[in-house]
């Protein structure tokens, strides 16, 4: 599905949530929608789904979006926070399955792969499930519908590592041809799911380009260093923050770590007892690398 937004705007009273957004999302593109809280990401996805009326024009495969039902059957949406519905899992699966025309078995298979046994939880109220279980259910419902447009809002935030890996695997198979819009700052999600990045700030598009270059500039690494030596002044001067047990921590742009680690070892010598270098699990916009 190709999406074209022309001069899209939305106001809530005196507040402009979106201003003059021009954007083209090609068929099959995997786009990350980034931006700080209140930047307009949620408003934009809601406008795309037809949940709210917006100014300007939204074209779906060249046709103006005038009715939500034009697009609803072709998209699937996974919210960051699953709704607290009192209906049972079986009732929800049945209702959405009927609306979309897929069998329960399709959901059960994907849910099972993600680690959610529908037979076991089917009679439980959705709101009684844990956050992770609800997220798995929503992901299974979304993937089972084989959508042309998949809108995901921090889809794996509540998942454990295994379920996350299985979701990425399913995603690669099921959503390979789908157009994807992902709202997330999680690096593993961005790496696994997107090839394009759009950044919003105060309701405007401030960046629109390939993901690889954008992420390369902003991937954060965290250097943790345990120092027992006599003089930690070098660490403080280099921007490390002191923690418990002699640990010092600093988040740096990915490229910076290759220079910083040898410099630290040279300056601190035998006082360094341990060293850990890991990826930050979230994309820290504006805090490392380029602002």
């Amino acid at each position, binding site marked *: 599905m190709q999406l074209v937004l022309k001069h899209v705007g939305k106001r809530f009273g005196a507040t402009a949530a979106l201003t003059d957004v021009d954007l083209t999302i090609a068929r099959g593109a995997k786009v990350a929608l980034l931006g700080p809280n209140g930047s307009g990401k949620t408003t934009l996805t*809601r406008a795309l*789904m037809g*949940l*709210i*009326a917006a100014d300007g024009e939204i074209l779906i495969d060249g046709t103006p979006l005038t009715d*939500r*039902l034009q697009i*609803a*059957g072709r*998209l*699937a*949406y996974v*919210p960051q*926070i*699953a*709704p*607290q*519905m*009192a*209906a*049972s899992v079986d*009732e*929800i699966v*049945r*209702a*959405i399955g*009927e*609306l*979309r*025309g897929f069998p329960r078995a399709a959901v059960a298979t994907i849910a099972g792969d993600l680690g959610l046994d529908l037979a076991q939880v089917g009679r439980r*109220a959705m709101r009684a499930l844990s956050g992770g279980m609800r997220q798995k259910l*929503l992901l299974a419902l979304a993937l089972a519908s084989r959508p042309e447009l998949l*809108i995901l809002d921090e889809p794996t935030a509540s998942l454990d590592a295994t379920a996350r890996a299985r979701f990425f695997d399913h995603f690669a198979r099921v959503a390979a041809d789908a157009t994807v819009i992902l709202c997330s700052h999680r690096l593993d999600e961005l790496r696994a799911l997107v090839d394009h990045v759009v950044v919003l700030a105060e309701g405007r598009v401030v960046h629109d380009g390939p993901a690889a270059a954008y992420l390369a500039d902003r991937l954060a690494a965290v250097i943790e260093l345990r120092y027992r030596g006599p003089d930690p002044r070098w660490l403080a001067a280099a921007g490390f923050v002191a923690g418990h047990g002699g640990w010092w921590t600093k988040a740096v742009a990915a490229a910076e770590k290759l220079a910083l680690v040898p410099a630290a070892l040279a300056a601190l010598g035998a006082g360094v007892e341990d060293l850990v270098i890991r990826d930050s699990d979230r994309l820290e916009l504006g805090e490392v690398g380029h602002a």
Partner: protein
Amino acid sequence: MTFGRQVLAAARLDLAEVRRSRWLWFCGAAYLILAVVFVLVGLRESTVMGFTGMGRVLMSLCNALLLILPLLALTAVASVIGRARDDGSLELLFSQPLSRSAWFVGVSATRYAVLVLPLVALMVGLALYGQLAMGQRVPWAFVVRALAVSASLLAAFAGIGLAISTVVRNPARVTTYVVLAWALGVALLDFGLIGVLLRWRVDARAVFTLAAMNPVQDARMALLSGLEPELSNLGPVGFYLANKVGASTLYALGVAWPAVVGAGAWLFAFVRFRTSDLV
């Protein structure tokens, strides 16, 4: 998917929501109180005093219905859209190929059915219990009249509740509007209007017309005119109208006008829901 199947899917989900909500327990308790009033006060007393006390008993039941039913209907529906919006249900449901109209119709029908059907079961069940277990003569005509009027009164306030639900987003304000709508319905009965008459010397016909626009007043007159059309039962407004238009017209008015008010409010809510932002 056809509109009917969409309505059915929405109705089933809402029924599940209602089944697990505290509101259903509140509603059940209210109906239980009605049952206790009917059985303990009505049937037990009549076995001691004979049927001479039945009119008074039925009047008590009518008064209880008039107080409780509007409140039940308002609490059943006034938060339905706001709550679904706040807990994310609307966002999830309307990312599916489900039309707004189908959802609205499904939810309206479910809530109304959950309000009316238990009342029908309760009234008929109690009447049968009185007849079969206690050997009472059941005034079936009054039971049918009470059910028709109650169903209409529930429709009026369910419609008003839905209108509140579509207009007011803030949960605290919803509660305020519910209490206000209920208080207006109850307070605009005779005693409130007589107060207005006395204080501002308003023309009697204007007061009676105002009274007749209140669905609760119409329902009350329709219910009570089925008993003895006395001033002590009907109150000044009801007595005036009963003498002016007759008991049958009062009954027709008591069934029709609340239904019209409910339909109007529902239509307003329906149009507003269809045209406003969903989230």
